[in-house]
């Protein structure tokens, strides 16, 4: 199982790198799916099968599909890819990457400073999660309901298209 972790970690990192470097949105999203699937494998190796499943269904499934849906709807294709390709020159990405890498190195150094503990993985099964979720965290769960409601109301309002696109006083 250790091996699974390392392999899937590698896959996740590699897929993520690919995802953030693709020019075509659909390609990027597909790599992202791979990355999420690999993450699901990591979760599995961490003894959380429930989360692994959710990762696949919600992240790789629902959310990515939402993205793809929007990409399709806006018909973002070659133009966007070309635009991004023109944009993503070393001049543009080198600086941020350097800074972020410094950040990464610093974070890793800090992490390594912390005492290293070996985790002993035991499966925490969905039942336990559910008990916790509907027990002590029930209010949080309800609040998440409101969170989603806010999301829905907001998305519904903002997503609405008016016939007139121009502001009315402009015409």
């Amino acid at each position, binding site marked *: 199982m250790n091996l699974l972790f390392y392999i899937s970690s590698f896959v996740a990192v590699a897929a993520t790198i690919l995802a953030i470097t693709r020019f075509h949105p659909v390609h990027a999203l597909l790599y992202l799916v791979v990355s999420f699937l690999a993450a699901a494998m990591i979760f599995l190796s961490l003894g959380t099968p429930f989360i692994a499943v959710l990762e696949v269904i919600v992240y790789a499934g629902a959310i990515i599909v939402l993205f793809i849906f929007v990409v399709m709807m806006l018909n973002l294709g070659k133009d966007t890819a070309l635009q991004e390709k023109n944009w993503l020159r070393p001049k543009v990405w080198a600086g*941020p990457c350097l*800074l972020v890498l410094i*950040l990464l190195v*610093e*974070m890793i150094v*800090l992490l390594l400073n912390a005492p290293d503990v070996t985790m002993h993985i035991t499966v925490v099964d969905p039942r336990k999660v559910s008990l916790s979720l509907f027990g002590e965290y029930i209010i949080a769960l309800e609040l998440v309901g409101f969170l989603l409601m806010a999301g829905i109301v907001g998305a519904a309002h903002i997503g609405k298209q008016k016939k007139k696109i121009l502001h009315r006083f402009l015409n």
Partner: protein
Amino acid sequence: MHQYLYLIPALPLLGFLILSLAGKHLHKRVIAWIGAGTIGAAALITILLGIEFLQSPPASGAYTQLLWNWFSAGQLSVAVSITADALTLVFIFVITFVGALIHIYSTAFMRRDRDYARFFASMNLFVCSMLVLVMADNLVLLYLGWEGVGLCSYLLIGFWYETPANCHAANKAFYITRIGDTAMAIGLFLLFKELGSLHIATIIEQAPKHFEAGDTHITLIALLLLAGGIGKSAQLPLQTWLPDAMAGPSPVSALIHAATMVTAGVYLIARMHTLFQLSPVSMTVVAVIGALTLFIAGCSAMVQTDIKRILAYSTISQIGYMFLALGVGAWSAAIFHFFTHAFFKALLFLAAGAVIEALHHEHNIFKMGGLKNSMRVVFLTFLAGAASLAALPLVTAGFFSKDPILWYAWGAANGNPFLWILAIAGAFITAFYSTRLMLVVFWGERKTPVGDHPGKWMTVPLVILGIGSVAAGFIEWPHNLVHFTLFSEQVQKVLPAVVLKQNLPSELIFQGIAALVTFAGLYTGYVLYYSNKGILEGWRQSAALLAIRNFLLGGWGFDDLYHALFVQPFLFITRINKKDVFDRLYNGIAQANININRLLSLTQNGSLRWYIAGVLLGILFIITMQLL
């Protein structure tokens, strides 16, 4: 009478108040009566007081009247308190008596002026201030009078303020005297620090106990007070304002710039004689300043063409004699010369004023001439004054007062042959320019037609003063002649008697020399300006002599020197710093803030990526802090 002492300064003050507040609405005649009347009344009181003083002198030697306590803070306690001893009485007499005459003269002289009330108000205020100056029993009150006369001098020099030159002259007079005043103020501070009092009598009493002779402090104090005196009395090196001060009306020149105010320095030194006596250095300085001044000013007087400027330089020169006398310790001689000088110099100015007015405001003596017959009274009185100025032996007051000075310049304990030489040279010069003045103005051919003849209100004061210029000398005869010494007897109640050197030649020799020199001066004047004018014409051809003449005409270049040395740098500094360097500093700070604002504004460029970069920098900062 002495219970009315306070009336002497109060009456002129009253006049001033009435005239300044209601002057606009009063008739000129009323103004004249108030203006001259108050002074006249004060003069009357003074004369009565003087008689009382002579008949039954007060036990303490002075009348004193406490009016009110001015202020007292800490150990400093100052009262508005006036006092009159013999010295003061001399001054009061001159101020009120000559002042009254000049006022009377002015009522006619100024008759056409629009600001009649303002003139008399200022004159009355001046008389009041001058009286306060001499009657003050403490130095703060004296300083009040001192500054007050300065103010009035300023107001009156600039009386015709619409001409910028007059204003400049007034300002100049104020600035320069202010320099002296400031030094004097510092002297007062030092005096107070040392003695803890500014009461004159106390100082006189305490100073010898507190200071050793020749102490640095006392020298410093004396020199600072002297500086005040120099400023007011137009002595070297602060003499430059007085010739310019002639911009004022002639009565003003007569009263302020000849008879009274300019002698305030003499009064101050005489009043504080104890301090000066304690400091031989300062005495020497006084004498040297006096001697130099009398010579330098006299030289300048020789070449002036403006009648009033001649008289002005002459005034400086005569006050130089007084300083010389003070410096050699001939206190009463100095005061006596002040006394006589007041008469003849006031007379000369008033007469000059009459001449100027008659000749349509012509000041240049070479455009006058031949007035001997057309202005008889003026001529005669002017003659009396000029003779007195030239110190014509035995018949003029000027002789009686100047002669002792010449004698003491050599013979007094502090005396010195060099001082005497300068003084004798001065006597020659004086006689010379007096003659020159007389001859050019009154003899020769008439160059400007005579306009208005002075009326009786002008001639009567002239005559009285003329009599005074001759007769005033008779109250004090030299020791070796008649030995009638009414004046010095009285004054020596206050001032110490002069100490003579041992083994002196006879005084008579000196008197003889003085008389000879005077006649020599007269004769030179006569030759150059009457009998043989060609010599002068010859001299005019010489460039060197012309340069010297111009040098003397400009008052030995002091004006230019000061201009370059003080005025220009001051103006330069003020001009370059008009905008205040500190303002620039603060504006710089403000500008820096604005520049930072500009820079920071660039970070708000609306780009989302840039904003995220901000977040990245933040987290980098935080993580780096933790690593460190």
